């Protein structure tokens, strides 16, 4: 017997992410920095796989035939998901990769159009994701300790912030997708590069919200709310295009399909101010909701759009409302439909 003796620790996994020089090549883009993220739960680990497809079964036969099945790699897309502590630095970085604005007042505007995402070209913003410890060690040479995903593009972000979760700090769930085959390396574990560690320091406590600038519909008396939690989700579909050859199946590029799906939900205390924006639950008129403060570097999570859902929760001592706003503005304008700033 020769069972392998190595063990891979789940708790020991680390994640580094950086902007690639050209999409799919794992080099560092000029001026970019490699970051290690504060992951709260193990990220997705995906080895090279192929989608199994088969012909219809042969009439007269009662089993599937191996000869009539294939691993189809031509349309394979891998999803890499991870959960991180949403400090301002982490939020800015994720917004840069997802909505291409990470300058601190990170916003998605009505006139957004996706960048060209082409194999071998400098792409805003394709990233390489390294997971230290996600590989497997071989007996001879240990160059497979880490797993590496090249050519990743951000598909979705969900930001959850509640007074009674994760010590009242924001949590971000990210999903990246790639059409490139996972690779194995040892760069992060062996220290071939040293990423800047984002530890989550400075993450905004939930209690930082302030009645000035925390409101539904209008910023002023009569519209302020007392929130218990809020969440924002931003997502889009990314599909791969083509494949370069029948050996590596590298995509020719990606295309964004459909539109951005943006939603913000807030749980808040049901009180007399509700009367002032109740009409907008059904009138079709634009509504703005914001959680934040009025400090010099404001905490501002704001969504502009129309109400898509509203419900009342009877599970607490006091009655609470939940409002969901679907983010939308006039297209082809610089109007912000979602702002994420901490």
């Amino acid at each position, binding site marked *: 017997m020769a069972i392998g003796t190595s063990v891979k620790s789940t708790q020991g996994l680390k994640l580094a992410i950086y902007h690639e020089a050209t999409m799919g090549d794992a080099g560092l883009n000029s001026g970019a920095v490699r970051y290690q993220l504060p992951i709260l739960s193990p990220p997705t680990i995906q080895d090279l796989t192929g989608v199994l497809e088969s012909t219809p079964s042969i*009439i007269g036969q009662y089993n599937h035939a191996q000869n009539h099945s294939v691993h189809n790699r031509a349309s394979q897309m891998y999803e890499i998901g991870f959960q991180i502590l949403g400090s301002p630095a982490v939020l800015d970085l994720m917004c840069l990769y997802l909505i291409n604005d990470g300058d601190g007042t990170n916003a998605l505007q009505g006139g957004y159009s996706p960048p060209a995402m082409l194999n071998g070209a400098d792409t805003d913003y394709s990233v390489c994701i390294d997971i230290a410890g996600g590989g497997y060690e071989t007996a001879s040479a240990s160059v497979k300790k880490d797993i590496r995903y090249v050519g990743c593009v951000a598909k979705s972000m969900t930001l959850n912030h509640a007074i009674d979760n994760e010590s009242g700090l924001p949590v971000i769930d990210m999903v990246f997708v790639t059409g490139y085959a996972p690779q194995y390396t040892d760069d992060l574990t062996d220290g071939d590069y040293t990423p800047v560690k984002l530890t989550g320091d400075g993450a905004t406590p939930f209690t930082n919200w302030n009645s000035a600038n925390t409101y539904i519909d209008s910023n002023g008396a009569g519209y302020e709310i007392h929130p218990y939690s809020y969440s924002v989700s931003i997502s889009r579909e990314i599909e791969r295009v083509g494949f370069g050859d029948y050996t590596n199946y590298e995509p020719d590029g990606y295309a964004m399909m459909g539109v951005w799906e943006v939603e913000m939900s807030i749980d808040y205390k049901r009180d007399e101010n509700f009367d002032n924006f109740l009409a907008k639950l059904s009138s079709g008129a634009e509504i703005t909701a914001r959680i934040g403060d009025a400090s010099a570097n404001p905490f501002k999570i704001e969504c502009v759009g129309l109400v898509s859902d509203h419900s009342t929760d009877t599970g607490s001592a006091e009655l609470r409302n939940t409002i969901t706003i679907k983010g939308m503005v006039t297209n082809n304008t610089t109007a912000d439909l979602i702002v994420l700033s901490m």
Partner: protein
Amino acid sequence: MAIQTDFQTTQNIQLVIGHEDNVGNGALLSGQAWYKLPIIAPPTINDNQTAMDFGTLQSGSYIQPENSTGRRNDQAMWEISFSVIADNTLPTLFQYMTHDLSGTQATLGEDYAPANWTDNNQNVTAGKETAVIYIVNAIKSGSNVEWKYSGCVLKSIELTHSIDSNAGLPIINCTFVTGYPAELKNDVAGLTITSGVNVAGRKFTDIVTTNRILGLSTATDGDVRVYSHSISMSRDIQRVGYQDTTNYKPYSYEQVGELECTGSITFKKDSHFPTIQALSRNNDNTGFNMVLAPNYFANLNKAKMTNLITDTGSAELRATAEFKGIGDPEGSSSVALIKHQ
């Protein structure tokens, strides 16, 4: 009441085909083999049904007179359609359309002429003129479990090959016709059969030698990333008369009109497209080659582009080019070449 309790399952149907000895005699030509085909759906099952003619309603009557009816056994033509995986060991069924001899490949020549389908005419190895088809477990009559169809001529055939359906394997859809009544038999268990039900097919991702649209001044300008291709051939086959009123076998079959050969190819629109697009507006000869040398050829070698359509249903823009095969009847070049080993 005495309703029977037996039944036949659909999943148990099998199809066996062989090159016929003489047109309509149902025997296997010397030196040929019976093949069990990898059918992916039940084939057409004909039970010798024929049309009924009804005469004119007579003045003063209001119900179709029973004496003014006539069974049209004299014009019966039964179609047998089926779909198979185009496997890489059996001779291609396309030979039953092109009537040429080249081992396992079929060439449609510019000088194509129909076979001699006179009743009882001797078939030759090179010809693949007619086939015998057994459909097993399609019927039960005593110990007979097969319909045997003799004198079958291939009327239409299509090779279709796509990267994202049927596990990337090529599929052949074909239709044979016969004017000879089917017979109840129990032959297959005693035949020597080459089974094709578990053979491999040439996968789409194997087709790497050439993926090209033909007819451009720089040949490589026609190289394209292909998602699917197909080649079809069809002809109108009609029966002639009937020899007697016992079996109503035809005197012969004749082809009426042309053998129409068409093809299509769906590919990614890219920087080669503007050059290719010109073929849809000029009168240049074109076609396409999808090749894994020396095993797989889906070649439409001589054609005109008949249509060019952009498809917006995928992440990337795709184009489908449609072609019709053409030729010089005085020439001997190939219009199309099919091999799927």
